[in-house]
C-alpha cells in the first residue's frame, strides 16, 4: 500500500500523465478529444427521466466520460438494434430482455460482465447467464400479480379471499369469486338459469392469449414446464401443461367468466381497456403496467397474489439487464458504466422513483412506498418475488417463434383448436426454429 503521502502524489501524477498520454495517442480532434462519449439506449420514456439523473451522477464521478441517452419506442428498438449490430454501430450499453438475450448472446453481440451475482434476484441472474457466465448487469424486474377493481368487489358484496386457488376440474376460490363477479344484463351469474353469455355486463376475470401474464403461469403452477433447460427445447405439450392450458380456455368458453377471445386476442385485443373501463374485476398484469392503468382508472385499484395452482404459486418474473456491446469502441468505459448501473445508488433512485423493482436485493421498499403514496398497495408483488418465480423461455429463436405461437394459441382461445392440438403444433413449430 502507498503509505507516504509523497509516494501517493507521485502515483497520482504518474496516473494522470498516463491518462493524458493515452488520450493523446487516440488523438482525434482538439482539446476535448480525451473525453469519451458513450451511448446508452433504452425504450421507456418514463424511465428516461430517471436515467437522466443517474447519468448526471455518473458523469460527475467520471469527468472523462459523457453519456448520451437514446430513446427508441419498443417496436423500433429491436429492429434498430439489429440493424445497428449488423452495421457494427450498436450503442455501448443498452437494455436487454430475457427473450431477446439468447439470440444476441449466442451470436457474440454481448460482452461478459463482472458482478456479484449473489446480490441480485436469482431469476434475473439466471435469465442472463450463458455457459456459466453473466452477460448483462441485472437492472430490474417486473412480476405478474393480480390487479383488481375494488369498486366492483364492493358493489357485488364480494370479499377478495385471502388466497385464490384453482384446479383443472373447476374447483377453488378463483372460479367461485369470478362467477360471483360476472353479471349479465339481466343481473344473472354464470351457472344460473337464464344467464346469457352473449350479454355479459361485467366479467369476473381476464383470461386471454397472453403468455407472460396468463397461460405460462397456469402451466408453471400446475407443474408443467416451458423448456426442458435454459437454451433447450420446448416441452409445454406434456399432460400437466395441456391441463393448465385447458383451464385458461375453460374460463372463457366453458365458465363464461372471461370475455370471448374475439375481443381479447392479440394484436388487436382490448383487455386492458376493458379493465380500465370497469368491465373486468380481476386482471393478471405485470407491475410495469401500473403507471398506465392506475392514473386513468376511475375506480380503486387493488393488488392481490396470483392464484395458487395444484403445484402451488409460480409466477413469471421478467428481468432486464444492462448489456455491454462486444464491439464497443470504449470497452472499459462501457463496462464501468454498466457496473455503476448495478450499484446501490442508481438502483435506489429508480426504485424510489416508482419506475421498477430494482434487481439489487433489499431496495424494494422504495418502490412500495412510491405506490403507497398513490394509494396502491403493491406489497403482494414483493411477496411473490420471494416465492417461486420462473423466467420466460430462455432459448434461441423465441423472437421468431412468438408470432406463430400467438397465432396458434389465438385459435385455441377461440375454441377452434383443442389445447392438446395447439400445444403440439406450437411445440413442433418452436422446436423447428431452434438452431
Amino acid at each position, binding site marked *: 500500500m502507498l503509505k507516504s503521502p509523497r509516494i501517493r502524489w507521485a502515483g497520482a501524477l504518474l496516473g494522470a500523465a498516463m491518462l493524458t498520454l493515452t488520450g493523446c495517442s487516440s488523438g482525434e480532434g482538439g482539446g476535448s478529444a480525451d473525453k469519451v462519449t458513450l451511448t446508452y439506449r433504452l425504450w421507456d420514456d418514463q424511465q428516461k427521466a430517471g436515467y437522466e439523473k443517474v447519468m448526471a451522477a455518473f458523469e460527475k464521478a467520471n469527468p472523462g466520460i459523457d453519456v448520451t441517452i437514446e430513446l427508441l419506442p419498443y417496436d423500433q428498438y*429491436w*429492429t434498430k438494434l*439489429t440493424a445497428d*449490430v*449488423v452495421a457494427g454501430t450498436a450503442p455501448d450499453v443498452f437494455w436487454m430482455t430475457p427473450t431477446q438475450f439468447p*439470440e444476441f448472446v449466442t*451470436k*457474440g*453481440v454481448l460482452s461478459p460482465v463482472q458482478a456479484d451475482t449473489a446480490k441480485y434476484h436469482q431469476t434475473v441472474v439466471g435469465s442472463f447467464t450463458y455457459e456459466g457466465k453473466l452477460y448483462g448487469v441485472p437492472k430490474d424486474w417486473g412480476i405478474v400479480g393480480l390487479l383488481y377493481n375494488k369498486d366492483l368487489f364492493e358493489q357485488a358484496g364480494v370479499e377478495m379471499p385471502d388466497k385464490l386457488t384453482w384446479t383443472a376440474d373447476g374447483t377453488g376460490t378463483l372460479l367461485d369469486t369470478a362467477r360471483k363477479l360476472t353479471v349479465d344484463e339481466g343481473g344473472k351469474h354464470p351457472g344460473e338459469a337464464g344467464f346469457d353469455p352473449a350479454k355479459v355486463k361485467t366479467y369476473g376475470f381476464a383470461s386471454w392469449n397472453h403468455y407472460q401474464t396468463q397461460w405460462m403461469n397456469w402451466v408453471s403452477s400446475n407443474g408443467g414446464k416451458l423448456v426442458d433447460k435454459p437454451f433447450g427445447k420446448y416441452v409445454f405439450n406434456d399432460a400437466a401443461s395441456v391441463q393448465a392450458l385447458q383451464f385458461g380456455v375453460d374460463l372463457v368458453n366453458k365458465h363464461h367468466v372471461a370475455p*370471448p*377471445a*374475439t*375481443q381479447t*386476442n*392479440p*394484436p*388487436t385485443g*382490448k383487455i386492458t381497456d376493458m379493465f380500465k373501463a370497469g368491465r373486468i374485476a380481476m386482471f393478471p398484469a405485470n407491475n410495469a403496467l401500473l403507471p398506465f392503468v392506475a392514473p386513468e382508472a376511475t375506480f380503486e385499484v387493488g393488488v392481490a397474489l396470483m392464484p395458487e395452482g395444484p403445484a402451488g404459486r409460480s409466477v413469471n418474473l421478467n428481468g432486464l439487464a444492462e448489456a455491454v456491446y462486444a464491439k464497443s469502441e470504449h470497452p472499459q468505459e462501457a463496462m464501468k458504466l454498466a457496473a455503476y448501473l448495478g450499484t446501490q445508488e442508481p438502483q435506489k433512485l429508480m426504485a424510489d422513483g416508482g419506475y421498477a423493482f430494482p434487481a439489487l436485493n433489499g431496495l424494494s421498499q422504495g418502490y412500495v412506498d412510491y405506490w403507497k403514496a398513490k394509494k396502491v398497495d403493491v406489497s403482494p408483488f414483493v411477496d411473490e418475488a420471494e416465492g417461486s418465480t420462473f423466467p420466460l423461455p430462455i432459448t434461441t*429463436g423465441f*423472437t*421468431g417463434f*412468438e*408470432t406463430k405461437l*400467438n*397465432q396458434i394459441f*389465438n*385459435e385455441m382461445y*377461440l375454441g377452434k383448436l383443442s389445447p392438446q392440438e395447439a400445444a403440439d403444433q406450437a411445440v413442433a413449430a418452436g422446436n423447428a*426454429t431452434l438452431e
Partner: protein
Amino acid sequence: MVIVLVLSLFDWELLSAPEFVGLDNYHRLAADGETWHSLGVTAGYVLLCIPLQTVLALALAMLLNQRMKGVRLYRSLFVIPWMATPIVLALIWNWIFDPRDGALNSALALVGITGPDWLSDPDWALPAVALVSVWQHTGYNMLFFLAGLQGIPQELRDAAATDGATAAQRFWRVTLPLLNPTMFFVTVTNLIGAFQVFDTVYAMTDGGPSGSTEVLNFRIFQTAFKEFDFGYAATLSALLFAVILLVTLAQVRFFGKRTTYDLS
C-alpha cells in the same frame, strides 16, 4: 438491389460472418410452402384493393369534377385519410372492427345483420385489412384522376355529344381512353404499393389469424428481424422484386399500345 441479390447467396445470421452458399437459399425458397402461401395472400390483397380503389377514385373524381358548392372542401376532405399514419389508422379501425362494441357491427345490427368477427376470422381478416387500404388511398388517387379529367379538352366531349353519343358512350369511348396516362400512373404506383403492404398488417393482425394476412413483406420482416436470417430475407426480397417487375412490365405492355399523350 445488387447488394440484396448478392446477399441472397449467403447464409448470414447477424454477427456471424456471411458464408457463401450459392443457390441454397433459392432451393430452400422452392420448397418453402409458407412463402408461396404468403405470395398467394399478397396476390389476394392486391386483387381486393386495386380494382376497388381505382374504380372508386375515378367515380369520385367524376363527381367532384362538376361545378357545385363546396367542391374544394370535399376534394380536401377525401385526401385526409391518406395523410394519416398507417399505425394510427390501424388503431382506429381496430375499434371499428371490434365484433361486439365496434361501429361496423353495431351499424350492421341496426339492419338485422350479425357481422363477422372481422379480424379474428380467417375469411374476413384480409378483406378487412384491404378495406382500410382502399379507404386510405381512394381520395389520394382521386386527385390524379381529377387532374387527368381536367386535362381533357371539353371540345372533345362536346364534339362527341354533337355526333349523338350518349353519356355512357362519351365516357367509354372518349373520357376513359384519354385518361389512359393517368390510369397507367395510378395503377402502376398503387400495385407497387399494394405488393409492399406492411404497416397495416403489422398493426391490425400481426399476420393472423392462422396466417391469413401474412403478406410477403410481413414474412420478409419476420425472417430478417425476428429470425435474424438476413440471407434468406434477401432471397425473399428478390422474389418480391421479381414479382413487382413482372407485373409492372405487363402493365407497360398493356397501356403502351393504348395510350396517347398528345391531345393537341
